[in-house]
């Protein structure tokens, strides 16, 4: 029996599961698009509110366009919750639920791209993010994408329950991380992190800045971001923080883009 035919490389014949081999691959990472800002617009928190919430926010994005390169991720919102509910009732697996829910975010992203079209924004599906994002940013003024990552049928079953764990917060963050973006800003309908849900506990304390590990240790009953993003931040290389801001407050996005301390910064 002849052996395998190998291409000569440092990893030739190695097990990519061997810890020592993997540890030996540690090396610096280059930022592909260091000027990029990834702006994630919440589905339920912003999009589902309609024009009074969405249009002022888009105006603020446009007002910042001359100074900042922005790509806009968009979340799914209540239609995803509805199809998750129907899908769970039917017994569908997490991967099927992820594929279905992602379409709701695609709808929202497409609407945002229409509203920004006259200003040169384009809607990019995941394959075009892979192939065309740099060209589109050079030719157009910005891009809008589906915040939900294209995990589809390959979404992980979560530790608890069946809801797909990687939603639009995770997907937008990962776009920022892979391109080495300048910032990832998550736009919600709360000012940031509180020690309890401010919608139900008006006396909750505000947290302007916290590490992902400390936030996990607090074991808050709910978070305004997907819990999985904390794990992603702990393993981050390039984008080591995300900022949560209130998209219902005029000027917050502008401050966040300028690097001013607004909302809550969660860092590695």
């Amino acid at each position: 029996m002849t052996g395998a035919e190998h291409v000569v490389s440092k990893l030739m014949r190695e097990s990519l599961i061997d810890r020592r081999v993997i540890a030996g691959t540690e090396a610096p990472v280059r930022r592909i698009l260091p000027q990029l800002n990834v702006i994630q617009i919440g589905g339920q928190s912003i999009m589902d509110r309609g024009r009074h919430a969405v249009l002022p926010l888009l105006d603020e994005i446009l007002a910042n366009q001359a100074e900042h390169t922005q790509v806009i991720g968009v979340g799914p919102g209540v239609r995803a919750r509805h199809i998750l509910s129907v899908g769970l009732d039917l017994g569908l697996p997490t991967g099927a639920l992820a594929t279905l829910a992602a379409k709701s975010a695609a709808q929202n992203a497409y609407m945002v791209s229409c509203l920004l079209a006259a200003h040169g924004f384009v809607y990019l599906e995941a394959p075009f993010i892979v192939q065309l994002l740099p060209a589109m940013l050079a030719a157009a003024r910005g891009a809008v994408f589906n915040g939900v990552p294209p995990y589809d049928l390959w979404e992980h079953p979560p530790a608890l329950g069946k809801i797909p764990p990687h939603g639009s917060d995770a997907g937008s963050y990962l776009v920022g991380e892979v391109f080495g973006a300048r910032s990832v800003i998550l736009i919600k309908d709360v000012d940031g992190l509180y020690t309890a849900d401010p919608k139900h506990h008006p006396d909750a304390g505000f947290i302007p800045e916290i590490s992902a590990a400390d936030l996990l240790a607090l074991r808050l009953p709910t978070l305004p971001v997907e819990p999985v993003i904390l794990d992603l931040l702990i393993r981050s290389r390039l984008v080591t923080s995300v900022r949560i801001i209130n998209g219902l407050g005029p000027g917050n996005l502008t401050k966040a883009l300028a690097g001013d301390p607004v909302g809550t910064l969660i860092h590695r």
Partner: protein
Amino acid sequence: MPQPVENAMLTDLGKRLVSGSLSDESLMRATENTPNLALVPWANVVKIGGQSIMDRGRAGLMPVVQEIVANLPRHKMILGTGAGTRARHIYSLAIDLGLPVGVLTVLGTAVAWQNAQMLQYLLASHGIAFLEPEGFASVPHYLMERGAVICQGMPPYKLWEQNPDIGRIPPQRTDTGCFLIAEVFGARKMIFVKDEDGLYSADPKKHPHAEFIPRISVQALLQRDLDDLIVERAVLQIMLNARHIREIQFVNGLKPGQLTAALDGEPVGTIIYNAETGARA
């Protein structure tokens, strides 16, 4: 704000889902108590190793192909391919160039894709098709009509692949992609075809006296904390949370008959099983 959804249309769980937070543990726990529908419970997922089988060319691959053909009348198979030595080359090069993990996944996917194409050429005369992830809605049809279908093993994460804990290699590669296909379809079996008899306490290529492990729980295996394994660590982690796939099997593709035995339900090679017998069992 108006009520987002007319409540009368929704289940009790649905009402909580449209108004609640998806980070709420009690709500997530409530989604646990829903049925687990197995979409294609008669399908078997068979992963053909990249470095272990494909890179061996005719000598390693053709007997496996013949065995697949012989099993077509009796077992429905989703055939996924690994990447192998060309992936190792491009990972080395891309790491040297400073490219991030997501880009490495895009590059590695191309290698698994090449292997899937080659496998498809070898099975073309039996009417076996290759499907991209975007075409997966057609998988059940091809399985019913032709008995097998080919896909590349990498999950379609592309630039959205996550960083590993250590190093720069994408942590979720073709073992993980094939396992997740088996899980989402509620498949009958997940069989990995490699070039070893199964799992050993160390890499048997480097440690000839390593102990063979024919059967072990995923919990016990994680506890042993071995430096090297026969399967990506991500598979073991995901297996702990899987609803459908209770065990995975590893057979030696260089030994004729092992794949057939595994498809027939015999305990050849190594079986890693989930020992948890809780609500998900």
